[in-house]
């Protein structure tokens, strides 16, 4: 086991007050520690010295919950491809390195404290259409709706999104298109998602806009940063689904089928 001596530049901020970078020395960090374990060690030392520990989000520490939001050297979740911060290991760094640690920066993700941001905007987008209507009661027969394997696989790829927000943090425009496209795409791909298809597409995109995220400029930084390797082809599909839903909305196609009623 090797020990690393690191120089950290950590963003410190209290709520909406202006923040700043704090230089923190982190000597003798074991290279088999994960990035979050390194943060734990640093915090223990800060506490032992009577200083304020660095606030950061974490939960599962196994790459499945999406909580561990940090931008490391300008890259959300750090430089490893398809890896969350909790799964990033210190052996990827060298002794003497300076590491910049910042929150996921977007107006729609306000800083709570230090590296913790409020990602409630994603929850509100989900509430605007990220669901399917099902019959409750006894469990339905498992294979009563036949679904092609390619369709199931595609939906599963989109469903891999853990809602971490790295796509927003990496996007030059702080756009949430990759997240929204994965969530819309997952449900719009499956037969169970068809009844709400149009309403979901319009509703989730409208909520995304209302939350103040930026607009996609097709630069694909999101795909490079995504720990679950969600493909930007989901954004292609969202663009297509939105255009179709908007045209139907303009000509009132959905309403006519409902005999002049329904719609929103």
């Amino acid at each position: 086991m090797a020990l690393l001596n690191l120089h950290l530049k950590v963003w410190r901020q209290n709520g909406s007050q202006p923040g700043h970078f704090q230089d923190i020395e982190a000597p003798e960090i074991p290279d088999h520690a994960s990035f979050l374990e390194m943060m734990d060690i640093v915090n223990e030392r800060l506490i032992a010295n009577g200083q304020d520990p660095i606030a950061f989000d974490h939960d599962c520490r196994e790459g499945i919950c999406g909580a561990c939001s940090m931008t490391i050297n300008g890259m959300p979740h750090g430089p490893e491809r398809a890896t969350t911060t909790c799964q990033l290991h210190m052996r990827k760094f060298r002794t003497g390195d300076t590491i910049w640690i910042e929150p996921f920066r977007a107006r729609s993700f306000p800083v709570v404290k230090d590296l913790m941001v409020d990602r409630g905007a994603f929850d509100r987008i989900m509430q605007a259409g990220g669901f399917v209507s099902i019959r409750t009661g006894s469990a339905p027969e498992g294979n009563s709706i036949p679904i092609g394997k390619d369709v199931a696989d595609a939906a599963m790829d989109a469903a891999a999104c853990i809602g971490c927000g790295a796509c927003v943090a990496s996007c030059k425009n702080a756009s949430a298109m990759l997240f929204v496209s994965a969530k819309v795409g997952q449900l719009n791909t499956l037969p169970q998602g068809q009844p709400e298809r149009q309403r979901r597409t319009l509703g989730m995109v409208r909520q995304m806009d209302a939350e103040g995220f930026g607009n996609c400029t097709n630069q694909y930084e999101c795909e490079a940063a995504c720990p679950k390797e969600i493909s930007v082809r989901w954004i292609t599909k969202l663009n297509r689904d939105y255009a179709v839903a908007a045209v139907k909305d303009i000509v009132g196609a959905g309403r006519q089928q409902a005999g002049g009623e329904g719609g929103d």
Partner: protein
Amino acid sequence: MSAVFESLTRFYQSSIGKKTLVALTGAMLVLFVLGHMIGNLLIFVGPHAINEYGHFLQTVGHGMGVWVARIGLLAAVVIHIVATIQLTKANRAAREQRYGCEATQVASRSSRFMIWSGLTLLAFIVYHLLHFTAHAGNNYGSYMTDLDGHQVHDVYKMVIAGFSWAPAAIFYVIAMLMLCSHLSHGVSSLFQTLGLATNKTWPIFKFVGHAYAALILVGNCSIPIAIWVFGYGH
């Protein structure tokens, strides 16, 4: 009626709606740029060819054709610019606090430069129209020649005179470099925005976009360079 209007407004106000309009107007302008270049290359065929082409453009549809095209293009340019400026402003506002350490992993330089290449092109379009269409500050409008017994505008002489002046030739070449940069991101990008790309076709769109940008650069720059550097037409 008002319900349709409300839906249209909502479409324009949405992020994807605006982007769709940018892509559609962009597609119109992409095609225009190619047609414009092919027509202009007639200068290398000779005075008769380009003057005949110029006369055709002026008189097609009893002189209406050119106005239909102009109004269509003006509308496309205005929508393209207004929507992109609104989108860019919203994008800046979406990240108020910038990163202390910024990293770019895959975004191309031209994709990050779109608003600036675009605004330079806007300045160029204004100059270009004053230069060769409105003939502001020059007497190109008075150049006339005989075409099969008719007196027509001497486009050939105008272009040779226009590009014999070094500052104009240089500005045109700079503007075409900007156009090349703009197209190298914009052409493939419009297929993504219009929802037409797939994993299989994306590499093709990307290649076509780059090739198209290079073609337009070479084709358009050949005219001022041939005249200003190599003295073509003198």
